[in-house]
């Protein structure tokens, strides 16, 4: 008798749900020791629904196909000297941020999902987390492979893993994931599976990647879209987790809401660096950060929260502040990196006149009023041979670890400061959002490893900033950092292109 082909639903039941087992001689709660301490109540894991119903055999089949397509493009890109076809060598600096700041997060996501998947009592959630863990491992590998080609031709890509662990601005993404991974399994899922994957990663992997294509970088757009095709599954897992938690017990609703408030705020802060990559580091423009934010955060996120309203879930706290910030954050961030350009592992620059005009057009309410005059001043100073670099080390927010660069949204000339005293010590924050996160769990955040504090305490070598950069961060000082103008990257590019 010929074997009957199973339909997707039956196959999913047999190859996923039927793989579970009962605990007959061991205590089940000892097998899943982290399932209860966050206060989440699960009454019936069998109510878990995985809408994609992907089984392991199908997973390998399609992932293998994605990998073959991806590596064919990497090969073609390298064999065709694709690095010469990018729009402008300034663009590669966005890749330096990506490799040092984002790719290591993929590895942290792998670790987080492998751990979290192990801790869930339900088999459907375990299998979905296992697939996501393997996806994340694939993402870090493909990103390293894609960018290894650029490493042959450009500076600043040589020691990304070491840099991720030590460099001041990279503690922002690193501590974000450390925070999520140090939480319980359900908070990790709300933080990464839901808040980060469902709304926020889209902003990096869709409009920014489309921008990579528009700047001639086929290798990056391809790993980006290939990764994001896994993210479509991750987003769906994140949404399922939320719905499942909210349907299991009404006591879960306030806990989940608190995590949503925390992680949307944390995620918004983390994306500050992406805002700057979109508005300032893509020489050929696809859309502004503000436009991308409106499509992927306001529209997509708004639809999501309307859908969840029936469970009693509301928009994340500080949504009104977040809405105003889209007009400001990219400008505030790029200015901060420009003025700290001697301490960054990538090059910074003054936008061209054409780019300044584009920013004026895209940000009619804020750019000319608050930000363009700074660039006009920077141009004057540069013309006089006085390119500005600040001498000071910035004060950092204890939660997001970003320098105090954000302003009050009602007064964009006033830096936003908050503080809190805990056991006799004063802690500093960039916003009400970060302040409230501290107040909720001070014992966790008093342990933050803040790079500027560590430098002042003598834990990062020194005594000068240059010593820290060279010996502790292992940057090639004078090569990896400073302005794009006059950099070895720029000189090599001119030589390849035959430009004087």
């Amino acid at each position, binding site marked *: 008798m010929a074997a009957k082909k199973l339909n997707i639903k039956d196959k999913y039941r047999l190859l996923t749900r039927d793989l579970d087992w009962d605990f007959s001689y061991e205590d089940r709660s000892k097998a899943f020791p982290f399932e209860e301490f966050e206060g989440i109540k699960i009454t019936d894991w069998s109510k878990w629904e995985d809408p994609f119903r992907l089984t392991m055999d199908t997973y390998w089949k*399609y992932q293998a*196909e994605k990998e073959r397509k991806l590596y064919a493009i990497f090969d073609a890109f390298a064999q065709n000297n694709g690095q010469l076809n990018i729009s402008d060598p300034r663009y590669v600096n966005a890749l330096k941020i990506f490799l040092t700041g984002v790719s290591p997060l993929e590895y942290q996501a792998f670790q987080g999902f492998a751990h979290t998947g192990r801790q869930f009592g339900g088999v459907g959630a375990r299998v979905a987390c296992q697939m996501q863990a393997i996806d994340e491992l694939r993402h870090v590998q493909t990103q390293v492979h894609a960018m290894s080609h650029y490493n042959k031709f450009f500076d600043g890509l040589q020691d990304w893993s070491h840099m991720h662990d030590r460099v001041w601005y990279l503690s922002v993404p690193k501590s974000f994931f450390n925070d999520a991974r140090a939480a319980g399994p359900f908070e990790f899922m709300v933080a990464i599976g839901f808040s980060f994957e469902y709304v926020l990663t889209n902003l990096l992997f869709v409009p920014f990647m489309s921008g990579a*294509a528009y700047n001639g970088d086929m290798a990056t*757009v391809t790993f980006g879209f290939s990764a994001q095709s896994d993210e479509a599954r991750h987003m769906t897992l994140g949404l399922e987790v939320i719905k499942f938690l909210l349907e299991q017990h009404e006591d879960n609703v306030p806990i989940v809401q608190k995590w949503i408030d925390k992680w949307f705020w944390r995620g918004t802060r983390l994306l500050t660096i992406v805002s700057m990559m979109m508005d300032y580091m893509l020489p050929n423009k696809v859309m502004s950060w503000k436009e991308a934010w409106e499509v992927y955060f306001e529209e997509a996120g*708004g639809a999501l929260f309307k859908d969840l309203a029936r469970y009693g879930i509301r928009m994340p706290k500080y949504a009104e502040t977040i809405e105003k910030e889209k007009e400001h954050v990219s400008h505030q961030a790029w200015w901060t990196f420009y003025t700290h350009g001697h301490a960054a592992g990538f090059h910074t620059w003054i936008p061209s006149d054409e780019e300044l005009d584009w920013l004026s057009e895209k940000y009619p309410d804020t750019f000319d009023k608050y930000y363009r005059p700074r660039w006009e001043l920077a141009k004057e100073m540069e013309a006089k041979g006085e390119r500005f670099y600040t001498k000071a080390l910035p004060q950092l927010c204890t939660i997001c670890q970003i320098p105090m660069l954000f302003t009050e949204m009602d007064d964009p000339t006033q830096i936003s400061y908050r503080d809190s005293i805990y056991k006799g010590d004063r802690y500093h924050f960039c916003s009400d959002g970060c302040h409230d996160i501290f107040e909720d769990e001070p014992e966790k955040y008093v342990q933050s490893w803040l790079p500027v504090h560590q430098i002042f305490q003598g834990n990062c070598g020194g005594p000068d900033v240059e010593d820290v950069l060279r010996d502790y961060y292992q940057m090639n000082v004078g090569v990896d950092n400073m302005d794009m103008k006059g950099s070895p990257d720029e000189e090599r590019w001119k030589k390849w292109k035959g430009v004087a």
Partner: protein
Amino acid sequence: MSKVYIALQDNDESRYIVEAIEADNPDVTVLHMPAMIRIEAEGFLAVKRETVEEKIGRDWDVQELHVNLITLGGNVDEDDDQLTLTWNE
């Protein structure tokens, strides 16, 4: 009503999938961006196997969609015949 959306890599396979989506969901908006195609619809969108097979001229498994998928928004339901996206309001 909120918009559901799906984005696909701009390539030869997706072109037929987009044609099928347009045929089955007459009110969708198709946006072409560098290297990608984004399709939006009010509240509901379906990708139907039968229509894709007709356009692409071969057997097509709904789960093949994963190969060219970039992102999506909405509650997903997938079986052997179709993938649907919906918002509940």
